[in-house]
């Protein structure tokens, strides 16, 4: 870097490269401190905001009139109040399921088309990843208040809880096998006890998240899906009762946390 003029300057490029695993936690913490609120997650929010307003689908409509639970067109604070029961769909929905519902109802898109590629990669993130990041960003600073009063909301919580402790898959794991005891790690990654409010708040208030190690925005639907992959089960269906109830259980455990996403993770 070369500076012209007499002004003083300092330049830092915050790169996150592959490093020995033992060094990863501290290196990541350093990165997180340096970037502060200026995480690449912001870039996904910007693209997501454009996609939210983009007219598309057979009805050539945007998602701006989407009712995320706070009324048509209200995005502020909506993410932090999900999952919840929606009477129009007669089911409990998380943010991504509700965004999909709006793609179907407002834009007239088929579920199949809209869900063709829910999980993207670094080269080509998915539409849902951008949209989820945008919707989540509009709840920054809001208290997390998932739905807990409707019978279906209570049931989703209870089903999620039962799933959390159910042994399944080729390796006999339940979620609690890894997330059941405090102070444990898998390789060098800390494992939060997601059945407890403290660790659940820290985790759930920062999803979706930009993962610096692979430059991707990851959502809660992906998070649950990927845990099951590692548990060696078949694939849970996107937006199914299993996945949405798991997200409900984890979010209720985190209730009261101040939402601070989209986050930045290792």
């Amino acid at each position: 870097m070369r500076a012209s003029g007499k002004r003083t300057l300092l330049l830092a490029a915050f790169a996150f490269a592959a490093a020995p695993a033992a060094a990863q936690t501290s290196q990541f913490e350093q990165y997180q401190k340096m970037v502060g609120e200026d995480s690449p997650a912001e870039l996904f929010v910007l693209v997501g905001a454009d996609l939210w307003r983009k007219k598309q689908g057979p009805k050539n409509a945007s998602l701006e009139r989407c009712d995320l639970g706070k009324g048509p067109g209200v995005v502020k604070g909506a993410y932090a109040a999900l999952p919840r029961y929606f009477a129009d769909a007669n089911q409990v929905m998380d943010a991504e399921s509700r965004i999909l519902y709006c793609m179907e109802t407002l834009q007239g898109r088929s579920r199949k088309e809209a869900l063709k590629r829910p999980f993207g990669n670094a080269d080509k993130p998915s539409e849902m990843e951008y949209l989820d990041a945008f919707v989540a960003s509009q709840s920054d600073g809001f208290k997390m208040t998932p739905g807990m009063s409707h019978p279906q909301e209570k049931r989703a919580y209870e089903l999620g809880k039962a799933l959390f402790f159910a042994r399944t898959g080729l390796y006999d794991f339940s979620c609690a096998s890894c997330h059941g005891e405090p102070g444990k790690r898998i390789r060098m990654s800390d494992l939060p006890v997601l059945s407890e409010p403290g660790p659940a708040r820290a985790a759930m208030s920062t999803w979706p998240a930009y993962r610096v190690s692979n430059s991707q925005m990851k959502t809660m639907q992906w998070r649950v899906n990927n845990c099951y992959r590692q548990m060696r089960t078949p694939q849970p269906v996107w937006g199914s009762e299993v996945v949405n109830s798991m997200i409900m259980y984890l979010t209720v455990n985190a209730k009261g946390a101040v939402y601070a996403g989209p986050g930045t993770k290792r």
Partner: protein
Amino acid sequence: MAGPMKARARMQGNYADVRVLMSHPMETGQRKGRDGKPIPKHFIQNLAVKLNGKTVIEGECSQAVSRNPVFSFRIGGAKPGDKIEISWLDNKGETNKTETAVA
């Protein structure tokens, strides 16, 4: 087409702390694609920062920087309201820029 950029500039004592986020694949040329062929180099080569239209920083950048980089600059002598423009040029000749005012 280049993805978004976002910049923010805030006074910190007697200098402006400028942060800029940019969407860029920052391909090193050393990765292989699914087909086994190397993915061509594609990275930001030049960065320029202008303060009220006058270039104050010109820099070269290498492929050793991660995808979607975050850069930070401190510009001495800046004042609130000053206009800051940041632009980049990559090895394929693509370019993008963004503007912000010092808060």
